[in-house]
């Protein structure tokens, strides 16, 4: 996640020092810094990542684990609703316990964050890698290659992704690690948007002078792609990635919600939402915690993605630059 908070914005252009991209990235980062919403979002995401990474430590601190049942903490006669207020929150169980099982919600939410973030970021990485590769190939390849890849992309866009994902996750053997499977399924089915953006950008860039110059200087097709096109594509791709992450997070939640995500007893936010849905009135805390976390995370990613897009947009940039200068001159 730090990847999206700033530093890596400069990364893609780093190897090609001296090109205009470096300057643009630096400027974008400067502009981004001045937007409080973006910084708050980045902070929230950073905190979430830290919490997820530190899950075992925090669990030890609370003295609970994600799987232990506590039959004595739920009212069996009333459907297994936790005793006490706010879902049975106490000094032992900071955020209460799960109805029916009495498992600790705090620890399950932390471990759930691991799955949700891992799957969302992993799937985005797969989508971006595939999308860029296929988009570039379509943009640079012959008309025949472009046509073929274009049709494949169209088909993928038309496919009902969730249904296909359910079918795919259902046929894969149970022993296959589920988070990896989710990353692959969501990644392999969701690259079409990226590839379309990259192809369009490539077609535009191809006709620009610096690309033509590179070709004339004797660069091969792939050298041009690597040296000239990729750095120029970084901005739109990074922006799109920031939008894809929250989308993927929701897809993971939907799949787990429908019972084809991670397998029990592994917690994930989607799986928690799925079991929590009927408990809204009887035990609101149980629903609100995972729902609230998912909401905050998706919102943070979206706000940050939007900010990155604005910061990298040359048209927005010219407008913003005035403000920046003013601030600098002060």
């Amino acid at each position, binding site marked *: 996640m730090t990847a999206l908070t700033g530093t890596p914005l400069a990364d893609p252009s780093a190897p090609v020092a001296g090109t205009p991209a470096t300057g643009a990235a630096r400027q974008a980062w400067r502009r981004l810094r001045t937007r409080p919403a973006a910084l708050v979002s980045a902070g929230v995401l950073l905190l979430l990542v830290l919490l997820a990474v530190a899950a075992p430590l925090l669990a030890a601190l609370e003295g609970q684990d994600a*799987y232990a049942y506590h039959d004595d903490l*739920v009212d069996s006669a009333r459907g297994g609703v936790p005793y006490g207020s706010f879902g049975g929150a106490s000094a032992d169980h900071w955020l209460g316990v799960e109805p029916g*099982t009495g498992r600790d919600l705090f620890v399950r939410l932390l471990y759930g964050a691991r799955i949700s973030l891992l799957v969302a970021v992993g799937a985005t990485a797969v989508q971006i890698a595939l999308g860029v590769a296929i988009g570039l190939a379509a943009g640079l390849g012959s008309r025949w290659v472009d046509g073929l890849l274009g049709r494949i992309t169209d088909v993928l866009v038309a496919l009902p992704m969730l249904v296909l994902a359910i079918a795919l996750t259902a046929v894969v053997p149970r022993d296959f690690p589920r988070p990896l499977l989710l990353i692959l399924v969501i990644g392999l089915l969701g690259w079409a948007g990226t590839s379309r953006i990259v192809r369009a950008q490539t077609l535009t860039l191809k006709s620009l002078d610096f690309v033509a110059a590179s070709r004339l200087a004797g660069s091969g097709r792939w050298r041009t792609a690597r040296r000239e096109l990729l750095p120029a594509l970084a901005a739109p791709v990074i922006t799109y990635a920031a939008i894809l992450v929250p989308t993927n997070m929701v897809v993971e939640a939907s799949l787990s919600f429908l019972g084809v995500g991670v397998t029990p007893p592994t917690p994930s936010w989607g799986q928690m939402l799925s079991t929590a849905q009927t408990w809204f009135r009887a035990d609101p805390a149980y629903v609100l915690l995972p729902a609230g976390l998912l909401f905050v995370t998706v919102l943070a990613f979206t706000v940050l993605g939007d900010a990155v897009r604005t910061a990298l947009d040359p048209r927005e940039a010219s407008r913003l630059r005035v403000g920046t200068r003013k601030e600098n001159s002060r």
Partner: protein
Amino acid sequence: MRQSSVISRRVAAAAVSLVLASGAAACAGPEDTGAKGGTAGKAAAGTPQKGGTLTVLNSEAQTDFDPARLYTSGGGNVPSLVFRTLTTRNREAGAAGSKVVPDLATDIGRPNKDATEWTYTLKEGLKFEDGTPITSADIKYGIERSFAAELSGGAPYLRDWLVGGDTYEGPFKDKKGLASVVTPDDRTIVFKLKKPEGEFPFVATQTQFTPVPKAKDTGAKYEEHPVSSGPYKVVKNENDGERLTLERNEHWDPKTDEERKAYPDKIDVRSGLDEAVINQRLATSSGADSAAVTTDTNLGPAELAQVGSDKALAARVGTGHFGFTNYLAFNPKVKPFDNLKVRQAISYAVNRTSVVNAAGGSALAEPATTFLPEQKSFGFTPYDHFPAGKTGNPEKAKQLLKEAGFPNGLTVTLLHSTAQNRATSPEIATAVQEALGKAGITVKLDGQEPNSFNEKRWSVKDAPGFFLSRWGADWPAGGPFLAPIFDGRQIVTNGSNYNHAQLNDPAVNKEIDEINKLTDLQAAAGRWGALDKKIGEKALDVPLFHPVYKRLVGKDIKNVVISDWTGVLDISQVAVK
């Protein structure tokens, strides 16, 4: 976003179900818990009156509304309003409701000495909805057509029991009829069986024993308008039973029917509804919903948590029991479950409190240590061969594992389904996993979607060693409960096998045959109970829990009767005025 729409729809349904609680006052007190036997809600107060319209809100449509195609008697459900049978359930709440009583016949059947021949005499004055008299030939014809391949769906008992039943192909192909069903005169019918079957009167409650006039039979289309012998007739049937309208059958004579009360003038069945929506509508009870019931929807745990804190609502909840057992099944053909000590260790390690909570809590499930349900009619004989206590005995389990040669514990795989049924579902499986973990048994979960789950557990060839299973009774007696599960001759190698343990013990088989000869149902029940206790020693399964049903009714509903035969609200007893 495509994917989010799925969530929003489900969440919307959930939100609706939660409105159920909106009328709930916050005063505490779990009043409505654990009362045993079918208790009718307090809403049943006041003398029931004739008239009005009863609305039935169901989730499943009443498909295949043909007496040949319905499985078992339909209990308190819609079919028993239209179809009368030779015998029927005793329409009383609780344990009294698991008795067989006469319906079209004058008694529950007269057996010959070894219970291979059963004779029934029809009451006088019985008529179809068109006024023509019901004769024994109509009943014979109804039974014969249930053998036709195009009218499949009924229970297999007649095919297995009647002489020539296994080869008969139904009246459309074989005009001669079934020789083992004899009608010496218009009011007498005799059944000739291959083997002694003391529980035949229970089977005679099934809708295959409904009279069908041969002249009105339209084959597969008969279900659109089956000819009524009961208090109501079908006026409208839309979308294969999704919307049914029943009105009074003027030719039904209450003097011939002691069981069905038939208070409402009209019955309006609406199905295809979400379960949460049904419960919410019944709780709110606005408009026609105040005179509504459901015959297929139960209260869930979260809804119960809410109802528990609202006395007015709790008074409208009825409790039902149905002979049903959820259990952990072993296949001793697979290692390490061939080892008795391993099976015993698992029996000791199970934490039934966690399992019951996973099944919805003590109001929706009762811990089980016996395979037979805790009802007298089944011959329930208490036993607990491997006492795990309330929360399991991991120490004893570890010791047994050591004796079995697994001092460092072992790893096993548990097959379960991904269906959200709180019976073979992931919640139950994880509760078992957690408890066994404490005894050093690492359980890997193998969750499969319901179809492949059933295919696997019902297969002799592919059945894994350890899986969740469940069994319900076709009628409240030991026979249909124990025989399919433990009779070695009922191991089905090329179809659905329910004898998961593949037990083929000559002593058990012989005792089953002996009990089937008894026509004294009470004596038979005692023997079934003793047999259950004896088989229990082999640790071929770990009984987990028996489900309990909580049924909510609309606020104007009177005379709520829920029997232990099916645990379903008896729609023939309900009044709306």
